[in-house]
């Protein structure tokens, strides 16, 4: 009971959402426990690890109860923007709705509790599921062979480059080591080329944002191993001359790699094989709606032409005598890019998505994505110019250069202010060939109402740029934290919480 002479401590009221980010490592109290493991119910074991093998200092971890752990992570979760909170028009990332059915089926114990070293006979349903996904991806891309091994898009690029390199080496063409990459490409492309021991060479784009066929003719030669093309490209534009591009590269002896990061735009409309490509990687976490998980897991399967199929990694799924099998690598030079068979759980989600949509639904996915992007473009182009608007598909890249010139408002300021409206920012400053770039990809799962709200928010921000530019320079204002000191983070990296735990 409170006594009259007590001075009660003043506890200030806080606004909702504030102060939720206390450190886990300051929360523990010695003696608390959450989880208990099943005790050993057999005869006592008297062996001990030799002292030389034992850890000297026990691992210092916070001691917490289960309610505290649940509250900590639930509180942290509320600090995140996410697809189910609001629009997420992050260009090139395809932040579309992630159906819950897919989570449910991938978690079925018959899939989730399978060990990769079990016999094929124990995994018949899983192997059938993976084979069906491969088959669907082949039908969507027009290729005869598929590998589900790559765990992410960049991983698929790496494997695709490996396959092209191995193909040339098998033909004795060791000197074919140059891969052409347009200047609008994502940074993973040149990085992946370097990792397989080839050399990237940059191709300048034409003023309309597409590949310059004449420049390509001049660039190809006996060292050309291939070309990496994102189609539609990072400006959201289809490479209209892809047929001619493919002929030039093939005549020079090279092979064509399609970065399928934007495959969602052309589902059911055009197939990479028909365009003349030899390899494509597909981001299942973009086109096929598997959740991004705050940065993975994704999956980046590749599909290839018949002549490249022998260079895919093993084991491969086959069917003989009514049984699904995993067949060991055919040759010793077969690449291996993952401990097992890639992100199987992600592949199952993608299969469920493909089954739910069917061929008609997937085509509609592309149609609605392109409709949404073009609608937003049409509603904004008077205040936010799009230098390469003609033929824009599922996304477009606007430029805030005029805002910068007239009002001192950069793409970054616009992006940060959008956060105050409950919308995630677009991708900014990419691709590099557009000044003050804002890359906007609404995706097909946004209803017209949310697109209208997004347009209204940007129009209001445009008014604020004239009337109150400081409001934008200091944005965001309503988020759990405001702009961060990124220079400090990089100058004095504080990458782990290394003080003692449970001292409270």
């Amino acid at each position, binding site marked *: 009971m409170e006594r009259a002479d007590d001075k009660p401590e003043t506890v200030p009221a806080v606004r909702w959402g504030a102060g939720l*980010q206390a450190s886990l490592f300051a929360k523990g109290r010695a003696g608390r*426990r959450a989880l208990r*493991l*099943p005790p050993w119910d057999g005869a006592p074991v008297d062996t001990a*690890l*030799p002292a030389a*093998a034992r850890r*000297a200092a*026990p691992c210092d*971890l916070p*001691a917490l109860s289960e309610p505290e752990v649940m509250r900590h*992570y*639930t509180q942290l979760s509320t600090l*995140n923007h*996410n697809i*189910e909170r609001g629009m997420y028009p*992050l260009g090139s990332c395809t*932040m579309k709705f992630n159906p819950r*059915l897919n989570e449910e089926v991938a978690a*079925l*114990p018959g899939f989730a509790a*399978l*060990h990769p070293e*079990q*016999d094929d006979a124990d995994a*018949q349903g899983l192997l059938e*599921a993976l084979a069906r996904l491969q088959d669907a991806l082949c039908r969507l891309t027009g290729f005869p062979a598929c590998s589900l091994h790559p*765990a992410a898009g960049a*991983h698929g690029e790496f494997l695709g480059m490996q396959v092209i390199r191995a193909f040339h080496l098998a033909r004795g063409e060791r000197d074919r080591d140059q891969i052409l990459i347009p200047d609008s490409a994502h*940074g993973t492309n040149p*990085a992946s080329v370097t990792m397989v021991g080839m050399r990237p060479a940059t191709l300048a784009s034409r003023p309309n944002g597409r590949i310059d066929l004449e420049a390509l003719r001049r660039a190809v030669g006996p060292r050309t191993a291939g070309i990496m093309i994102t189609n539609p490209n990072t400006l959201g*534009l*289809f490479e209209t001359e892809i047929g001619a591009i493919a002929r030039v590269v093939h005549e020079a002896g090279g092979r064509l790699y399609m970065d399928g990061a934007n495959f969602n735009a*052309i589902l059911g409309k*055009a*197939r990479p094989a028909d365009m003349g490509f030899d390899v494509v990687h597909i981001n299942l976490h973009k086109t096929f709606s598997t959740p*991004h*998980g705050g940065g993975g897991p994704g999956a980046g399967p590749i599909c290839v032409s018949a002549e490249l199929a022998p260079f895919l990694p093993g084991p491969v799924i086959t069917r003989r005598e009514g049984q699904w099998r995993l067949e060991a690598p055919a040759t010793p030079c077969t690449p291996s890019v*993952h*401990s*097992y*068979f890639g992100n*199987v759980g992600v592949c199952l989600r993608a299969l469920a998505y493909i089954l739910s949509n*069917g061929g008609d639904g997937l085509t*509609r996915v592309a149609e*609605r994505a392109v*409709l*949404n992007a073009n*609608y937003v473009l049409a509603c904004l182009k008077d205040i936010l110019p799009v230098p390469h608007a003609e033929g824009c*598909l599922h996304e477009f890249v606007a430029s805030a250069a005029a805002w910068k010139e007239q009002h001192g408002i950069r793409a970054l300021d616009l992006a940060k202010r959008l956060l105050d409206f409950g919308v995630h920012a677009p991708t900014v400053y990419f691709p590099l060939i557009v000044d003050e770039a804002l890359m906007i990809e609404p995706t*097909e799962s946004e*209803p017209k109402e949310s697109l209208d709200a997004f347009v209204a928010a940007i129009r209001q921000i445009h008014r604020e740029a004239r009337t109150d530019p400081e409001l934008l320079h200091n944005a965001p204002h309503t988020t759990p934290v405001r*702009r961060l000191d*990124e220079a400090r983070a*990089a100058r004095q*990296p*504080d*990458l*782990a919480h*290394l003080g003692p735990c449970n001292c409270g």
Partner: protein
Amino acid sequence: MPYTPHTAADVAAMLARIGAPSVDALFASIPAEVRLPGPLDLPPGRTEEEVRREMKRLAAANRSQEELVSFLGGGVYDCVIPAAINAIAGRSEFLTAYTPYQAEVSQGTLQVIHEWQTFVCRLTGLPVANASMYDGATALTEAARMGAAQRRRPKVAVPTALNPRYRRVMATTLAGEDIALAEIPRRADGTTDPAALRALTAAGDVGAVVIQNPNYLGLVEPVDELAAAAGGACVIACVNPVSLSLLKAPAEYGAQIAVGEAQPLGVPCSFGGPLLGLLACADEFKRLLPGRVVGRTQDVDGRDAYVLTLQTREQHIRREKATSNICTNQGLMALRATVYLALLGPEGLVELGEANRVRCEALRDALRRVRGATLPFPGPVFNEFVLRLPRPAREFRVFARERGLLAGIPLAGFAGCGEGDLLVAVTEKRTAADLEAYARALRDFLGA
């Protein structure tokens, strides 16, 4: 259509605003010569219940570790998964967010990654860790590149008893970078030979030395002697993080990089993916680290806050000069492991380690008594060991499977192992009755 909200009226209004006559007209930039002439050759869409039924049928056609008693390991283990992990990892806020580019609306994910980095540092004893790698194999491969690059030497020494799957991934990836693998042989007792390593590193061209502890045969390696024989090469420890509850931390024997497969920390086996690669390093390797890294800083109001940092290493800035091409990693799996470690705490972690070790020793002890079976490598183990049979191990695997047991991984052809050798793993999930069933199956198989 299941996941697109547009009504016919919406479509008409939007097309009018765009000024396009039809949706198809929006695709006019795709030339006719490459257009798909007809509809996709795929069946039509199905309802949620139909897809659920179909996927359940496929799941039911498998026999998983849920029905069978598993003694399979080799890098992926049948482990306890606390309910709290699925509850938290299933939240939309974590599940459907992407890489935290906009830090102001991503503090949840960013702080979780910072906690993961912290846990990895505390387990390994090293000061720096990244946001995760695809799996143990790719983490080890990236570590080898870091070591060889930092030491500017072209060879990486790997033990014969290294996980063969990891070795295959290394060979694929490092070939393109002109990094050669040199093999450190094992001794008769199954552990890696420090004297042979010393001879190998004497030439001065070995940039990195890999120590897998426990090794693929389950044996605890002589880590101090091996590290001492590295001769100026970078020492890379490849570990099962659960074993670090009991076993010497990589930093304690002088490893400068630690990698491993963190699947046993709350990630389902899921036929080997998605898994969770961990990567930690000493400060001098910080700028060679692949992938994403989160740092703590402050916002303009002086509040503690987290942000992606050291980004100039990455491909979106350095392009062909980047430390790696990785961008999407295994974020949600890192969240799962982070929640698990928060649930375990210091006592729970040691209890988990002991639960593995005690059960493993109990089974070793029981099988040692079965006439005809031998244990070729008597040294200390954590949760896995080699069983040697007078008949092919594959036959025992089939025999045991008939009784609902997944007996282990046959080792024929690996590191001098024969047809009779089987790798047997025992995790915290196994009971005394499971172990008794294993011993009985072995006795019956051998007619002992």
